[in-house]
């Protein structure tokens, strides 16, 4: 195991993860808002924000899928050491991390069942930047409407929304910033 | 003029101080030591360990002392403590065939390899108050028989199994679910049902078992075997490549032999109910076996007659006494708001009903 795996976790786990969760909750409960998080120093190419999400939400009970360049020894070792999360293929993943193009096609991930729509994957999508502009978001969590830069055409996320109450939930991460897009959000082009 | 009642915090502190005083009782009477509870109220300790799902006689004794002998309260204390414990790993399944039995009886065979071991039982005692105990007499020593040390004895049901007379249980190395770590999902499988029953309230499980004997889901059970004794708990250490012996724990295991008429695909043979409980808990383990067997109607192709003991959702949702007592007792909490809403509704409905019948509506006194 690489020595970097042992570093970059939360210094004070109870407090760091609590603050990180509140930012995460705000991000998902208020789509279109962009939150700043801290406390993780994960190995490249994992962003600080994605690292924080992994430390906050995953453990031995949550299978994680690493896509594309994120599926590298440094990241694997770091997640294994820091969280104990089993690394799996897309179909079994509770969480998946990677660049948008590597996560595609999305239909490989669990979208939940009619009885248990919560048994669906959460995708952590690493982005170059996050901005409150672009696609128009409306729905639960949003007063009137909001805008968020998305890594793909609005229709892709609209198709996910159309599955409601099934579907995937997304976090977009860039550096130490993150935004959430739950399946409940209606996404349109302008 | 009116001022609302205040002082919740003070009231709580005072109540707790009073409780502590009551717990101690008359200070001129010597205080109970934990080892006295552990050694002399062992069956209470066992019940608290079994339903608390935590094998620790000293902690159970403490819980009993702290709860003034209220065993459900003691079980609650154990459960609340248990959830705070980190989980280092999972032991190997215990091998009850290797149990060092202090008691082992079968109701189905008069004699059998390993013999009937009566052990320390209330059975055949005449339930007469023993005033010698009140006089604080020294307990008589039990006679020691040479060569009668607890030893491993084979399971009775294996004798039946050899002849194909009893249903073979499917072997599985699948990790059983864990109710304490995952929310109960229905329908549940047998390992989860057994876990729920093992933690379940002794009185509830007893009454359900009794109801099957009276015809509410009858299963014609005999105690094939009841055994009590110590088993070894072993833990595989991956780094070492072998299992280490952690401790010996006392268990009670019951296997019932039940009549089974057979089905289209199966010739008549006996079936089993199973009970396994921490500590010496005979009544509980027999009850558990009967309820387990009643819940197996579906897999055995039997009719569902609507008996409570056959109803998995009913049994599993209501067997936990900590859930039950909490929800039951919560109606002591203030419900001013919902009651007020009901009060308004009833007044309005009454006023409208009286208006319709033409009766004069009662004038509210304060209005």
């Amino acid at each position: 195991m690489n020595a970097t795996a042992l570093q970059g976790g939360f210094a004070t786990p109870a407090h760091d993860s609590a603050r990180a969760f509140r930012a995460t909750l705000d991000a998902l409960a208020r789509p279109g808002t962009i939150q700043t998080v801290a406390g993780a120093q994960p190995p490249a190419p994992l962003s600080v924000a994605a690292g924080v999400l992994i430390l906050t939400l995953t453990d031995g009970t949550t299978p994680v899928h690493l896509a594309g360049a994120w599926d590298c020894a440094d990241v694997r070792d770091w997640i294994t050491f820091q969280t104990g999360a089993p690394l799996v293929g897309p179909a079994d993943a509770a969480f998946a991390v990677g660049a948008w193009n590597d996560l595609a096609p999305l239909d490989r991930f669990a979208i939940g069942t009619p009885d248990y729509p919560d048994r669906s994957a959460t995708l952590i999508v690493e982005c170059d930047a996050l901005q409150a502009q672009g696609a128009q978001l409306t729905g639960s969590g949003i007063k009137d409407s909001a805008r968020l830069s998305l890594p793909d055409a609005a229709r892709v996320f609209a198709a996910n929304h159309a599955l409601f109450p099934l579907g995937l939930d997304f976090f977009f991460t860039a550096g130490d910033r993150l935004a959430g897009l739950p399946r409940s959000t209606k996404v349109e082009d302008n | 003029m009116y001022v609302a009642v205040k002082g919740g915090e003070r009231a709580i502190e005072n109540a707790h101080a009073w409780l502590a005083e009551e717990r101690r009782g008359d200070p001129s009477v010597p205080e109970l030591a934990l080892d006295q509870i552990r050694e002399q109220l062992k069956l209470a300790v066992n019940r608290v360990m079994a339903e608390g799902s935590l094998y620790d006689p000293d902690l159970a004794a403490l819980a009993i002392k702290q709860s003034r002998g209220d065993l459900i309260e003691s079980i609650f204390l154990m459960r609340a403590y248990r959830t705070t414990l980190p989980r280092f790993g999972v032991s190997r399944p215990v091998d009850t065939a290797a149990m060092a039995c202090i008691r082992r009886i079968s109701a189905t065979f008069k004699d059998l390899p390993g013999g009937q071991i009566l052990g320390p039982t209330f059975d055949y005692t005449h339930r007469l108050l023993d005033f010698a105990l009140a006089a604080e007499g020294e307990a008589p020593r039990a006679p020691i028989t040479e060569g009668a040390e607890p030893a491993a004895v084979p399971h009775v049901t294996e004798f039946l199994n050899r002849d194909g007379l009893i249903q073979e249980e499917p072997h599985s190395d699948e990790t059983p679910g864990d109710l304490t770590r995952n929310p109960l999902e229905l329908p549940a499988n047998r390992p989860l049902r057994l876990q729920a029953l093992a933690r379940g309230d002794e009185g509830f499980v007893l009454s359900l078992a009794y109801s099957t004997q009276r015809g509410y889901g009858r299963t014609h059970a005999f105690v094939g075997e009841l055994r009590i004794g110590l088993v070894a708990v072993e833990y595989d250490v991956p780094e070492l490549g072998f299992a280490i012996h952690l401790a010996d724990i006392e268990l009670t295991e019951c296997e019932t032999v039940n009549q089974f008429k057979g089905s289209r695909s199966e010739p008549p043979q006996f079936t089993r109910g199973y009970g396994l409980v921490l500590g010496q808990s005979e009544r509980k383990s027999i009850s558990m076996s009967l309820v387990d067997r009643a819940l197996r109607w579906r897999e055995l192709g039997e009719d569902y007659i609507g008996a409570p003991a056959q109803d998995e959702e009913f049994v599993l949702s209501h067997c936990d006494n900590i859930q039950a007592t909490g929800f039951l007792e919560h109606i002591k909490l203030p419900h001013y708001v919902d009651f007020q809403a009901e009060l308004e509704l009833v007044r309005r409905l009454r006023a409208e009903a009286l208006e319709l019948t033409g009766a004069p509506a009662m004038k509210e006194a304060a209005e």
Partner: protein
Amino acid sequence: MTAIAQTPTETDAYNFAYLDEQTKRMIRRAILKGVAIPGYQVPFASREMPMPYGWGTGGVQVTAACLVPEDRLKVIDQGADDTTNAVSIRRFFQRTAGVAVTENTPEATVIQTRHRIPETPLTEGQILVYQVPIPEPLRFLEPRETETRRMHALEDYGLMHVKLYEDIARHGQIATSYDYPVKVEGRYVMDPSPIPKFDNPKMSDNAAIQLFGAGREQRIYALPPYTKVVSLDFEDHPFVASKADHPCGLCGSTDSYLDEVIMDDQGGRMFVCSDTNYCSTRREAGHIGAMAAPAPAQPQERRAE
């Protein structure tokens, strides 16, 4: 914050906010799925807490999973900060999380409640955590979880409409005064917890995050801010958020939910705000009800305690 003394934290003995990190992660994941599927009840592996089931263990676990050291916590039961169970839960978090507490609704960042929504409108950045006894709105119509889960999956809420309609046939109105079922964003029928139906409209379009925890029943559900929540009704029998038709005897408010207090054995009674913080804030601002003392902090005011 005056009446409640700060207790030193006991974080040495227990983890921050009592629960271990793995348990908090499990609860946090459930909360996030609840937020993503508003109104849907997410199963979670509720832990045994050091207070009884039915006394707020679900709310306590949700609060514990949400709290940060910087939070300012308010706990109410029946709208009041000083009811015994509210005091007990607030003290639990003072001890185990060392967070600041308040009775003042606008100051609070997290509010745990049983049976009420505060009268003062909530704001963005606040979280309202409800204690829920029976999270399944269909439970009293169909006791089996296996059945109700299927009904939610199929969006089959006919049973609920039949029940409400039977009410109308028998009583001329819907005879449910609290725990009044709602529909969330046109999809899930949800149990609002036993709040009076007077509070139901406050759930809709609320700026705060609303989280619901049912410990014994092992369910968490959520309403993100600005979620559309509609109380079930019929066109010819529209929902009415009713309350006692009186002003508060202490602060004179005519639009707050009221507790009825029996004054004597002659049938004398008065009505006072169930939201104690709302009422005292109004009195401090000079609003005086018909039965209040002329001014706060008069010596004789303590007599009745």
